[in-house]
């Protein structure tokens, strides 16, 4: 077995570039900073690829299952006799796959950003944050234990916060969005933390290898209802999933994701499409044996949350006009797919089809969604607007962007032979075998996806002839090359033999396309595309008429089903006005008032006693004599 200690460098290189750029970045030339960041990430990418090759192929004897390897581990914090937090590197199929995904997308985004962020005042700051994010994300996927994951989980959250709020000089909305993203995910992280606390209390370990061992203590102790009919293990996994749902923008924690689009577009591509938002999926996948063997009820929750989120987001995506928000809801919808796939999966062999499909989709989605975002970035770069209404007929001006965007749209719509077809098909098969209702939902979502993606595509590149103030021009090479690379990935990633590589128990299994499921799914994709073509290829009044006839549904979907308003109501009205303000008032007036009242009473008593000290000799003498008489009376006659 190959030695993987060098994989430690994969997260560490971005960390050092972060330190370098963070401390000295403002003294460098911007291009210098960009190059340092990019080359650092490039080095990580090369290491990640070599790790992947040696793990999956060269260092692996064919036919044996893939095992998880602890390449490196140091104790970081000793807690109790049983619990110690370690920092380390865990190499197994999903972490290696994630390494490839993250370093690839991140490298593309780095290269792209050199062009996209050119001339920005905070150029080096931007790259240092990108490095920080890459470091945290890599650390997250390499975590050997759940607590290390939590540590990097938080770091990922904060780098997301910093990058969304990157435009804080100019845009108050970006500040608000970054705050919202952080607080919503933080709230979900509380669930994660509680889940970790419960899990570690029950099992006495943080370590993934121990936890996910099918014969280990975590799974062995699963039985027994503890609270509301579910076992403690189930509860702790549900809490952990709450954390995952927060990061992965699952309903009802999705509200931060559309707002997060206020950040720079490369950031959206990297964090809010390809890597960070799938952390929730990765988390569930990481703990999958525990879910599948120890707490199927929790997995059931995962499946339904995922299924509902995918439908919910797809409906909203059909009505949005901001191209990045359409993509954001699309991301949410696709992650819902992945969650669902995990939720319907079983453990081991063919049973684990959903697990494989989920990771497969994660992989392909990272490629095509990053491509979509970067393409959208190129469009925004050209027309300086996010609104679909400001665009149209751009195919002549932006040929490269147009072609790559089309490829991405076909991929996400699930048209063969693009990669999306393969991964989505596996998910549908898994759902079909597990739960027919969920299958129906996903089937519908597949159609909706094709529809809204092509609505977007036609809205940008076809449609009306918009008059631009200055002619839009194609993005520079440094931006288009990453597009082409990702387009290449989107086309061919589907041919990777995922069923041999990434499976729930490490053993490969045979998988073939189930035409019974595949043909209808391609058909519904085509139907979606056709409808979109009819409605949006040429400018027409039909879409508005349809929207008018579905008045309420359209309005509700357009306003994202008013979930934001509910949150605002809860935070502004309830927490702020009915909790914090009264507490602050209570503190100032009741608690502090009591203290001041005690002080005031002392002063009052002093004034009362002060009157006795009148300075009148007679009064003193009288009191003295009376006192003496009374004392004599008491002590001589009464006692």
């Amino acid at each position, binding site marked *: 077995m190959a030695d993987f200690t060098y994989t430690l460098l994969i997260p560490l290189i971005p960390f050092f570039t972060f330190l370098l750029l963070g401390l000295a970045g403002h003294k460098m030339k911007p291009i210098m900073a960009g190059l340092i960041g990019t080359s650092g990430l490039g080095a990580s990418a090369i290491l990640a690829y070599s790790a992947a090759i040696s793990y999956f192929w060269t260092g692996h004897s064919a036919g044996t299952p893939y095992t998880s390897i602890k390449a490196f581990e140091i*104790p*970081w*914090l*000793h*807690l*109790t006799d049983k*619990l110690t*937090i370690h920092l380390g590197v865990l190499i197994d199929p999903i972490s290696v796959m994630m390494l490839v995904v993250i370093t690839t997308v991140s490298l593309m985004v780095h290269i792209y950003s050199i062009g996209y962020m050119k001339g920005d005042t905070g150029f080096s700051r931007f790259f240092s944050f990108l490095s920080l994010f890459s470091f945290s994300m890599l650390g997250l996927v390499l975590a050997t234990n759940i*607590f290390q994951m939590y*540590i*990097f989980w*938080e*770091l990922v959250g*904060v780098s997301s*916060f910093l990058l969304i*709020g990157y435009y*804080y*000089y100019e845009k*108050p909305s970006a*500040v*608000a969005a*970054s*705050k919202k993203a*952080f*607080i919503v995910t*933080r*709230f979900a*992280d*509380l669930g994660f*933390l*509680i889940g970790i*606390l*419960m899990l*570690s*209390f029950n099992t006495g370990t943080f370590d993934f290898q121990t936890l996910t061992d099918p014969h280990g203590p975590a799974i062995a102790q699963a039985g027994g209802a503890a609270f509301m009919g579910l076992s403690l293990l189930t509860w702790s996994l549900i809490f952990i999933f709450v954390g995952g749902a927060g990061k992965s923008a699952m309903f009802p924690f999705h509200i931060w994701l559309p707002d997060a689009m206020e950040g720079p577009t490369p950031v959206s591509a990297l964090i809010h499409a390809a890597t960070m938002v799938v952390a929730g999926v990765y988390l569930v996948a990481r703990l999958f044996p525990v879910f599948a063997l120890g707490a199927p009820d929790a997995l059931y929750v995962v499946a339904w949350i995922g299924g509902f989120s995918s439908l919910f987001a797809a409906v909203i995506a059909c009505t949005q006009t901001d191209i990045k928000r359409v993509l954001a809801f699309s991301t949410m919808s696709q992650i819902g797919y992945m969650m669902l796939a995990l939720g319907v999966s079983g453990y081991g062999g063919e049973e684990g089809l959903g697990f494989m499909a989920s990771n497969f989709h994660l992989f392909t989605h990272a490629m095509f969604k990053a491509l979509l975002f970067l393409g959208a970035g190129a469009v925004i770069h050209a027309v300086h607007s996010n609104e679909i209404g400001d665009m149209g007929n751009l195919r002549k001006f932006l040929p490269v962007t147009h072609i790559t965007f089309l490829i991405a749209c076909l991929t996400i719509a699930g048209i063969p032979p693009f990669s999306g077809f393969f991964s989505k098909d596996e998910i549908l098969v898994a759902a079909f075998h597990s739960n027919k209702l969920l299958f129906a939902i996903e089937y519908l979502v597949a159609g909706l996806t094709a529809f809204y993606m092509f609505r977007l595509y036609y809205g940008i590149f076809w449609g009306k002839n918009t008059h631009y103030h200055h002619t839009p021009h194609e993005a520079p090479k440094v931006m288009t090359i990453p597009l082409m690379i990702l387009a290449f990935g989107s086309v061919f990633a589907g041919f990777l033999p995922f069923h041999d590589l990434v499976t729930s128990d490490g053993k490969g299994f045979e998988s073939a396309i189930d035409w019974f499921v595949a043909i209808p799914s391609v058909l519904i994709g085509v139907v979606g595309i056709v409808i979109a073509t009819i409605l949006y290829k040429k400018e027409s009044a039909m879409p508005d008429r349809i929207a008018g006839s579905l008045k309420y549904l359209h309005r509700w979907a357009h306003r994202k089903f008013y979930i934001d308003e509910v949150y605002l109501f809860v935070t502004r009205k309830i*927490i*702020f006005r009915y*909790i*914090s*303000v009264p*507490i*602050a008032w209570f*503190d100032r007036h009741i*608690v*502090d008032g*009591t*203290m*001041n009242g005690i*002080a005031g009473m002392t002063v009052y008593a002093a004034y009362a006693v002060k009157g006795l000290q009148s300075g009148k000799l007679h009064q003193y003498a009288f009191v003295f004599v009376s006192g003496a008489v009374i004392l004599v009376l008491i002590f001589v006659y009464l006692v």
Partner: protein
Amino acid sequence: MSILNLFIIIPILTVGAILLTRDLKHSRLVSAIGMGVQMILSFVLVYLYLTERAAGNTATMLFTYDALWFPTLNIHYALGVDGISVAMIALTGIVVFAGIFASWKMTHLPREFFISLIILASGVFGFFISIDLFTMFLFYELAVIPMYLLIGIWGSGPKEYSAMKLTLMLMAGSALLLVGLLGIYFFSSPDPHALTFNLMEISKVRIPIHMQRFLFPFTFVGFGILGALFPFHTWSPDGHASAPTAVSMLHAGVLMKLGGYGAFRVAIFLMPEAAHEQAWIFLILTAISVVYGAFSAIVQTDLKYINAYSSVSHCGLVLFAVLMMNQTAMNGAIVQMISHGLMTALFFALIGMIYGRTHTRLINEMGGLMKVIPFLGVVYVIAGLASLGLPGFSGFVAEMIIFIGAFQHVDVFHRVITIVAASSIVITAVYILRVVGILLMGPIKNDHFLHLDDAKWYERISTISLVLAITAIGLAPYWLTNMIDYSLAPIVEKLAAIQLTSLF
């Protein structure tokens, strides 16, 4: 002669030297040198402590020194440190050093200011090195009293009111504490002629349970007032808002830690049975502190008030963890004390620096400061992130140790209340980000702010030394928690033994 004596001698010498100086320039230089030496000394102490332990010295207290100074009542000047006090001393060294640099431009009565500040510091140092309850109390009072002058003379806003309030409330705490300490003294030995104030000797005695029940609330609340225990925390917002920068730093940074340290070193250590019985009451109070302080901080508009309420929340967590009475949670309490001390000192230093530039502390009047004072802005963000428990900074380490430790408690009540306390991490994020968003980001609201200078060199020293300490603990907590763990072991063993006998 133990090295610990130097911690008292150096401040005295520094004060003497300041008396000889004439103006700000000289007095601040002398103070900086004196406290710099003190800080280095505290690091040396950490080093010596670790080498001593590595050499196999297993005594509970090291570097002990004992001199009888009032034979009639058997009061000793007894010194000694374990890993916990060593850590607290290092914290104090750093914060005091940073505090001197934060008051580099103290033009009003500089000599008197620095003298009071250093007396305060020496009280704190003395408290941490004492193992005689009486000497401890003496140093405690020595630390509290200069506060009155420091706020009353050099403060701002309603300073007389705040100084009076702070001093009176802390004195009320001392009064309760004195009852507790004297009670402990009178039951420190079955032989009425062998009464002692020595902590280590008392710990070998079992104070009668009915006396413990009576004395524990006095001692715990007495220390708890200084540790901002709800509902005795209200001196904190007013006091901090009025105090000058360095005083806020020292007060929130180290003085409030005397409360937590004392609560655990005296109240729980000496009266474990009563602590065990009554912990639930105080756990509820501290959990309220934690959540309530955080909620109050959300709606405040004055930077110092925000930070003061945040201190209430964080210090509440210290007492909370202490009351959990298991090794991990207590370890977390100590780390939280150090972490909060550094963070809050950094916050107050930054607030002072920002206030010195903008002449306002109301967040609504400021905005976009990141653009004009990037250094201070970045450090403020770092402090904020540390405060909301971001990994890589000390706050995260402390909170996680506390939560995990507390959650290991066998009792369901304790685990449920841990979740309540843990929910504060969300609320903390809300108020920290609210401030960062309004204060540092967004548009600049006042043209006057366009011409602010960024941090001067002395301000950089002050902030960077604190940031370094915060990140050092955050990145490599292992050595610190190990050092504390070793010293907690005897305390926890005592707790465990006694809990068994009293429960069954």
